[in-house]
């Protein structure tokens, strides 16, 4: 994947203007271009531009326009070594204004700096009027192609590997931009903000999704566990009837004897041995306590004791069979 969009190069010469690929341009630049003294006026430039066929331009949206140095006003200056680098653009602007005799707002310029042996700085300033640059760009701008104007000697001074669009835009002719650094910095900050925002939101959203997934997983796990447990517990019936009747047996007074007890589902059968006088109040108490239960009672006198207890004639001992049903 190529991140950098390719650009085409348009080469102006005295006779024609030709569009080349970036790779083949170096072969096309020959010394004759630079040595000729021909400087076109507007109508001649228009004629030169007529030779350009823009069909290839559809492919690329960016064009670097190379022009011979002498089509611009070029001047050389030597600066004091102590000149701070931030002041160089301003110095170049003043020289450009000087050489082109135009107002600072309308002058386009570019400069190359070189260190001399005595550490002084040589500044080569290329300048032209805004009008001239507009005319140079006109065939491209009419097609909505963005373009950079670079003098040929400047182009040649840049290493081929560094000829990216952004690097070239520093060398291209441009108007004076006092806030260039500042804006560059701002751009970087905005980019930084944008990148961080995107990454924060994507990380947070990813984390959010993973948490959601985690919740979903544990919910389904829990659901399946719950189903198993419910299946296991489904046979259980919340029925305390047997235990309740058993509690009645446990609460029987000392004088009542339980012979047998059988309780299941909604029925309990039991047999008691007790004195006759005790039975009625006991049954009445039970019926009062559990009004919803049905009671079936069958009594029989114990005969065996008759013979043996002449002293207890008043006390009849009963055998009682009771069935209790829990009504729905």
């Amino acid at each position, binding site marked *: 994947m190529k991140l950098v969009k390719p650009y085409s190069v348009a080469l102006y010469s005295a006779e024609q203007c030709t569009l080349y690929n970036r790779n083949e341009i170096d072969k096309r630049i020959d010394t004759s271009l630079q040595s000729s003294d021909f400087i076109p006026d507007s109508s001649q430039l228009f004629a030169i531009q007529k030779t350009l066929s823009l069909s290839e331009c559809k492919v690329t949206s960016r064009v670097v326009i190379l022009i011979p140095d002498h089509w611009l006003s070029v001047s050389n200056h030597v600066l004091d070594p102590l000149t701070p680098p931030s002041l160089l653009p301003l110095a170049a602007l003043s020289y450009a204004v000087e050489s082109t005799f135009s107002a600072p707002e309308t002058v386009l310029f570019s400069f190359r700096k070189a260190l001399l042996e005595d550490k002084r700085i040589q500044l080569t300033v290329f300048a032209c009027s805004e009008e001239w640059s507009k005319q140079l760009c006109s065939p491209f701008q009419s097609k909505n192609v963005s373009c950079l104007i670079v003098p040929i000697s400047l182009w040649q001074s840049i290493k081929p590997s560094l000829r990216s669009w952004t690097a070239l835009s520093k060398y291209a002719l441009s108007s004076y931009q006092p806030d260039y650094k500042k804006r560059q910095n*701002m751009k970087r*900050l*905005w980019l*930084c*903000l944008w990148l*961080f*925002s995107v990454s*924060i*939101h994507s990380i*947070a959203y990813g984390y*959010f999704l993973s*948490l*959601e997934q*985690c*919740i979903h997983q*544990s*919910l389904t*796990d*829990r659901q399946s*566990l*719950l189903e*198993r*447990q419910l*299946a*296991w*517990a489904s*046979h*259980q*019936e919340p029925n305390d009837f*047997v*235990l309740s009747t*058993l*509690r009645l*047996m*446990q*609460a*029987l*007074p*000392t*004088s*009542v*004897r*339980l012979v*047998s*007890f*059988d*309780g*299941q*589902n909604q029925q309990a059968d039991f047999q008691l*041995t007790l*004195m006759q006088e005790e039975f009625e109040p006991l049954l009445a108490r039970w019926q009062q306590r559990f009004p919803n239960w049905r009671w079936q009672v069958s009594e029989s006198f114990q005969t*065996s*004791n008759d013979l*043996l*207890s*002449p*002293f*207890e004639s008043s*006390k009849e*001992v009963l055998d009682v069979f009771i069935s209790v049903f829990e009504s729905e």
Partner: protein
Amino acid sequence: MFLSQFLKANRTSLLAISGSRVCLLIFVQALAWYPVLSEKYLDVERQIKRKTQLSASWQKIQAQSRMMEEKGFLQVDWATYSVGDKVQGTATTWQIEGRALIKEWQVLLEKVQEKSALKLVSASWESEQDSTWHGQLLFDIQEPKRNRAYENWLPANLKAGRFVEEDWTLVSTMRVGESASALLKHKDNQHWVRQGSWLPTAGLIVDLVAFDRVTLISKGGDQVALQFRESREKQ
């Protein structure tokens, strides 16, 4: 022209941004996520906790089932017990059948209740001649919980019927053929009794009538022997 200048100035000031403001904006954006994420995180923790609780309880149920299936679950020789149907590989019911004194039953059932969570489904108790109880109990196996209420599955209250020996006097014994009978005096009442008789006022069953003594059994299974005063004093 004035307006355009103003707009241009406005635009540049709009675009102006400092490093600290970038940091602030990033921080604010990160902060905006915080409540959402922290709530989700708590939710996750809550769900995981609920899940682990449930799986722990299910594991307890399974462990209990395995324990109850083992042969040596209760070390007792007078009762047989087994687990019933299985659902999801886990026993659902448990039954026990045996014959013993009510005290022994109590000890056993308390042990069972201590080890496992059971709910009584059906019970059958039969009082036998020798004062033992034949019991047949069926239980639902339940989820083990820490604080279970104790359930009494016995047919009688063990605490009932305390025996006061001073109130009783063996007056006489008599044997007519096979059947032996005795005359007992309890406070002001006299009772003619024989084996198996029920003494309602005291809640006692006559277990045995011998030549010189009478054995009585209380509802709780306590055994007491009554002897003639003289022979008791001699001893």
